[in-house]
């Protein structure tokens, strides 16, 4: 693999850029990836432009193996249909493609995430009288249940990384390492949470998310401050390699459909 070191003029990047690049790196070429809109879509399309040209991207709108030139704004933009190998109905995408466990990686984001990787995209507060009404489930619960593994991409904020989510929209590891099998969920669940500060992975013994990497230049204390539970740090904490010039240039060249040129 060719690695371009950032040049003198490219040593700065935003934490969002680092997050997208770290998330893109976590995908392997040839995998089939069920992509949520927003941060996951950016990262997956970046991976396809970098080291994973044969990544199979699948969106819940029914677009199978799509290769959009520009990033979609919605989950069903025309650019996804036009570049897809095949477009199937929405019932089919869930029943024939997601549910049987044919998808390697589910790529999700969320509004709240707890120490076991459970995700909330439904409400902040009580369901019947929420303080914030969020969009809801979409395809996420079954993506979280059925993909062989799940990667979560979301910004690291104390109000989002909580001890316990207000509402379980999508199950991560429930409340411990055996919950998924008890519930009959067949995928492995969240294997990695990639944020703008670092990477969290479930402890194999407890299924609790622990800090396994910080991004270049990020202190552990800052990550802890933005995490709503007592965050454990892995004994062999890694540091994410900084973005390469190629990674940054590729990410910055990607534009969303309809954005001003």
């Amino acid at each position, binding site marked *: 693999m060719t690695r371009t070191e950032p040049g003198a003029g490219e040593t700065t990047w935003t934490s969002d850029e680092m997050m997208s690049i770290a998330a893109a790196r976590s995908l392997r070429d040839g995998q089939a990836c069920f992509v949520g809109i927003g941060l996951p879509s950016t990262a997956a399309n970046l991976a396809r432009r970098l080291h994973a040209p044969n990544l199979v991207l699948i969106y819940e*709108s029914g677009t199978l193996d799509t290769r959009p030139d520009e990033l979609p704004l919605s989950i*069903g933009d025309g650019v996804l249909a*036009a570049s897809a190998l095949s477009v199937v109905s929405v019932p089919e995408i869930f029943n024939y493609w997601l549910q049987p466990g044919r998808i390697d990686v589910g790529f999700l984001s969320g509004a709240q995430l707890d120490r076991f990787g459970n995700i909330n995209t439904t409400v902040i507060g009580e369901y019947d009288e929420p303080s914030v009404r969020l969009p809801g489930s*979409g395809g996420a619960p079954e993506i979280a249940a059925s993909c062989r593994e799940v990667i979560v991409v979301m910004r690291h904020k104390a109000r989002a990384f909580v001890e316990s989510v207000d509402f379980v929209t999508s199950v991560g590891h429930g409340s411990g390492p055996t919950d998924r099998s008890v519930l*009959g969920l*067949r995928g492995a669940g969240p294997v990695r949470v990639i944020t703008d500060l670092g990477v969290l992975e479930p402890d194999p013994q407890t299924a609790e998310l622990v800090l396994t990497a910080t991004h270049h230049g990020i202190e552990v204390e800052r990550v802890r401050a933005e995490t709503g539970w007592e965050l454990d740090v892995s004994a062999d904490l890694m540091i994410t390699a900084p973005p390469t010039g190629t990674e940054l240039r590729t990410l910055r060249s990607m534009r969303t459909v309809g954005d001003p040129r």
Partner: protein
Amino acid sequence: MAKIASLAEAVSELVRDGDTVALEGFTHLIPFAAGHEIIRQGRRGLTLVRMTPDLIYDQMIGAGCASRLVFSWGGNPGVGSLHRMRDALATGWPAPLAIEEHSHAGMANRYVAGASGLPFAVLRGYAGTDLPLHTDTISSVECPFTGEKLAAVRAINPDVGIIHAQRADRAGNVQIWGIVGVQKEAVLASTRSLVTVEEVVDELEPVPGAVVLPHWVVDVVAEAPGGAAPSYADGYYDRDNAAYRAWDRISRDRAAFGEWLSSLRGEQAA
């Protein structure tokens, strides 16, 4: 044989106060023109069913058409929230809004069951999530062969199913291509159906990826060119992402929304 009528006639004939109505179209081919006509005709007390309420239901809720919303993802895609929906839920303005909430897989299978003449559908879903605590159209069944417990969702059979399609022929056969979503299922699950189309043509040229709804399952076809905008119609026009972004500002504010609504209603009077 489907009847070909104007959109105003079609809505007047098919949609009644208190009906359960599904306007479907997954991002693509959202039947905005039909929704706007329902607003203009002042329908009230509707149960609005749709996987992704999108701007169209935000508008219909803000206009006071709905008393209940059945959905699985209620946001402005890629932009943010549906503020009219949020306002109705939080404050009951302009009318109280009850909700029945599912996942996409659950909603899609509810339509499939409805289209299939079955009272429920089975799926692997909802296990461990909090939705079943709040939604009584989610239950479970046991496999009679393996003993496994699976989720069950109740069929949806709307009174009226409304979709937008690219074309129909003069007999009322309807052709849809691109992202086809759950439109076929929504029409087949509904007691009555309305299809708005970009154009009525003499003959439906075959198109790769097209789905055809035969005339004998469609009640009324209405020509409504541009009727999916600001969503899009593959082969006719693109999604107006700027309009989706601009809606955020209008929707946030009751006054700005009121102006939008007056303008919509005024258009018809003009």
